[in-house]
């Protein structure tokens, strides 16, 4: 005879059954997320729920900063003020020269028929939380798709590139730092225009130039800037400085380690560039394109984001 316990002893499914259920659910989510990226909408909803917690967790540090700001002495403030004034003077001079140079460059570009460079739009953001994942390098900033931040937008600080927005939620966005193992950025050596791709070197906080021939013309101390070839990063933003070059005859490639220019792992305030304008559909050629190139248009404007080195 079948013997079942009375209903008041009923405790639901056995723990092992529950474990199988939740483990399967987790594994299914993992596969969906890793292989197919079907879970982004679910992720956005949960991110909205988590955001208040992240903000609350950031409060003590912000409060401490405010309190310590209270006890800054007047002398310190005056010193800082003078320093900033000097810096402002310096930068305003540079800015004036930049304006003139840009006008000249625009004119020259028009002369050779190259597409005009679009002005960059940017907005400041604050890092609210740095990802607690020892396997990757990510931070969360306090601007999301509501403020116009898109996935793929470059993120800078006052000294150079720190990374790229990889996911934009409604109120926050995830930025993958340059030092992440899976993050790559196209760069160019300032001294001689040599192009390369810099990859994150993971936990060491450095960047690596991979696949550079052992006899490549590169030296210690060379400055690397974005080349702008990928259409994501605007050209000419500082990325890193070459710190160490190891040339081993046994390998075809040199091992080149670079120190990031920006405070990739340390800063607090960042600037998010808008890459939307650069992705705007480029002029008519695209509409009529599709295989038949009309011979009448000899000189086509280049793709805007494909600006090569002058």
């Amino acid at each position, binding site marked *: 005879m079948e013997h079942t316990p009375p209903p008041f002893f009923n*405790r639901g499914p056995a*723990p*092992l059954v*529950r*474990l199988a*259920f*939740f*483990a399967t*659910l*987790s*594994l*299914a*989510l*993992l596969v*969906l*997320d*890793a292989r197919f990226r079907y*879970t982004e909408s*679910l*992720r956005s909803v*949960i*991110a909205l*729920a*988590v955001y208040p*917690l*992240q903000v*609350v*967790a*950031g409060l*003590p*540090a912000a409060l401490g900063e405010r309190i310590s700001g209270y006890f800054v002495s007047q002398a310190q403030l005056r010193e800082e003020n003078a320093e900033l004034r000097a810096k402002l003077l310096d930068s305003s001079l540079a800015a004036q020269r930049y304006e003139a140079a840009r006008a000249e460059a625009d004119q020259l570009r028009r002369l050779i028929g190259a597409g005009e460079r679009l002005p960059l739009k940017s907005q400041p953001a604050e890092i609210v*939380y*740095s*990802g*607690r*994942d*020892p*396997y*990757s390098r*990510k931070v*969360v900033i306090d601007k999301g798709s509501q403020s116009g931040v898109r996935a793929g937008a470059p993120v800078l600080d006052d000294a150079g590139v720190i990374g790229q927005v*990889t*996911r934009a939620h409604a109120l926050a966005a*995830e930025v993958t730092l340059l030092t992440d*193992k899976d993050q790559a950025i196209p760069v160019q050596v300032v001294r001689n225009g040599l192009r390369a791709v810099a990859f994150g070197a*993971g*936990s060491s906080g450095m960047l690596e130039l991979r696949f550079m021939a052992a006899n490549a013309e590169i030296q210690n101390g060379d400055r690397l800037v974005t080349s702008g070839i990928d259409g994501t990063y605007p050209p000419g933003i500082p990325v890193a400085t070459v710190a160490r070059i190891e040339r081993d005859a046994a390998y075809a490639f040199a091992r080149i380690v670079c120190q990031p220019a920006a405070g990739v792992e340390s800063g607090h305030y960042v600037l998010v560039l808008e890459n939307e304008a650069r992705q705007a559909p480029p002029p008519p050629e695209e509409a009529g394109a599709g295989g038949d190139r009309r011979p009448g248009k000899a000189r086509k404007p280049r793709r805007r984001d494909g600006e090569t080195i002058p």
Partner: protein
Amino acid sequence: MQLSDAASQRILLPVRASTILGSLALALIANFLPWRSVALAPDFVALVLVFWCVRQPRLVGLGAGWLLGLLIDVGNGVLMGQHALAYSLLAFASITLSRRILWFPLWGQALHVLALLLFAQGVAALVRLALGAEFPGWIVLVGPLIGAALWPLVTTLLLMPQRRPAEVDETRAI
């Protein structure tokens, strides 16, 4: 049971749902604090989850662990399901061991908790390594160590709302 655990031999008041929810929320916030070294920071959510799974296996279990894991996954921007899987397994192991763990004095419990936390960390690491991340070094084992060291503190704090005031009524019959 040892003398050191004499305090917990007192009969405890039934736990309130607000205590459980509040402690889990606090743990989440503690996890989201801007830690300077992510590998060294203990996983407070795992610790509090273990605590409630051991103390109240009928109230907090796999479902809670799975949901918390999902929140942690999204908050950290890692693959969804990584911590959900780790915390489900952690909750299961804690519930299975709950009867055994409570027989030990606090330091003995802490050793069990160390094993549990290492197990959860190992599951998360396996998932990451299977998906092609590089191993960040043995420093990731320090977090669970610190977490286990915090176990007596967590036990004391989280049992506080359930403790009765010391008996003062001398004339009571029973």
